[in-house]
């Protein structure tokens, strides 16, 4: 499996995402100004502060040339993983429902949180079982998930009771598109892949993706 990790001006987790993806496949960086996905099998939109978070988180990044290709790739069924700022970008781009708002506590939160797997049928969670608990760090100021008006959302991960770090509605930590091929989450699975830094639960996301049959 070949992963492409988008690099915007202001991204800061693209190298960690590339290293995490490299554990289960090949991973290359995709420059925001290029309309070229280099034939990858999966796209990762990483964390950071794309375009300085100017105007509104993710608002400018969604218009980057590479995002036109990512949207087309997603509409054709290709797997797209948005982490933190990447989740915000995918919501702004209309690939995922809802929006991310400033944390209820207004503070930057950086700590491990416990998550509960709700939907293990997506390409990003198929290495999990519903009800599994995972420990993965969050680090964000704008992570309060707001449901769309119809409330029609495919919730994949929720913060475990007492672990909601930002006031997200329904304790939602991760959602997928109806078809399941677009996935966004505020926690950082790419920071939880090596025992050196604590939990390795984040590997499950990458291992799940590596199980997707090529061309699916």
């Amino acid at each position: 499996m070949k992963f492409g990790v988008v690099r915007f001006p202001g991204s800061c987790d693209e190298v960690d995402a590339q290293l995490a993806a490299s554990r289960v496949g090949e991973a290359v960086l995709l420059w925001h100004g290029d309309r070229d996905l280099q034939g990858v099998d999966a796209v990762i939109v990483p964390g950071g502060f794309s375009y300085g978070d100017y105007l509104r988180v993710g608002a400018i990044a969604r218009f980057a040339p590479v995002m036109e290709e990512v949207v087309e790739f997603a509409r054709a069924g290709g797997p797209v993983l948005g982490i933190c700022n990447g989740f915000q970008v995918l919501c702004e781009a209309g690939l995922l429902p809802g929006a991310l708002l400033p944390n209820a506590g207004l503070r930057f939160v950086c700590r491990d949180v416990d998550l509960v797997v709700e939907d293990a049928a997506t390409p990003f969670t198929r290495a999990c079982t519903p009800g599994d608990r995972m420990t993965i760090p969050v680090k964000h100021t704008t992570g309060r998930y707001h449901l769309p008006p119809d409330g029609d959302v495919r919730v994949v991960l929720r913060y475990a009771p007492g672990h909601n770090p930002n006031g997200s509605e329904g304790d939602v930590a991760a959602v997928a598109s109806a078809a399941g091929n677009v996935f966004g989450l505020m926690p950082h699975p790419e920071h939880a892949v090596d025992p050196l830094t604590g939990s390795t639960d984040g590997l499950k996301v990458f291992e799940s993706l590596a199980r997707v049959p090529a061309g699916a």
Partner: protein
Amino acid sequence: MRARVLVRPKAGILDPQGRAVERALPALGFDGVQNVHVGRLIELDVDDPNQLEAMCEKLLANPLIEDYEIQT
């Protein structure tokens, strides 16, 4: 033409910035302050003000979480 766009959090959505300001004012002796909301002001010169609404829908605001008001 000079235009202003006011963007504010949609009613009913928790606005922690507004709440923080609302709590800070009485601490400074300003009593009787309620319903504080913090948004942003965008000022711009436009040739065609008819495009402002589309600009708001597409970029300047996120209609899911924000209301906008165009002043020309």
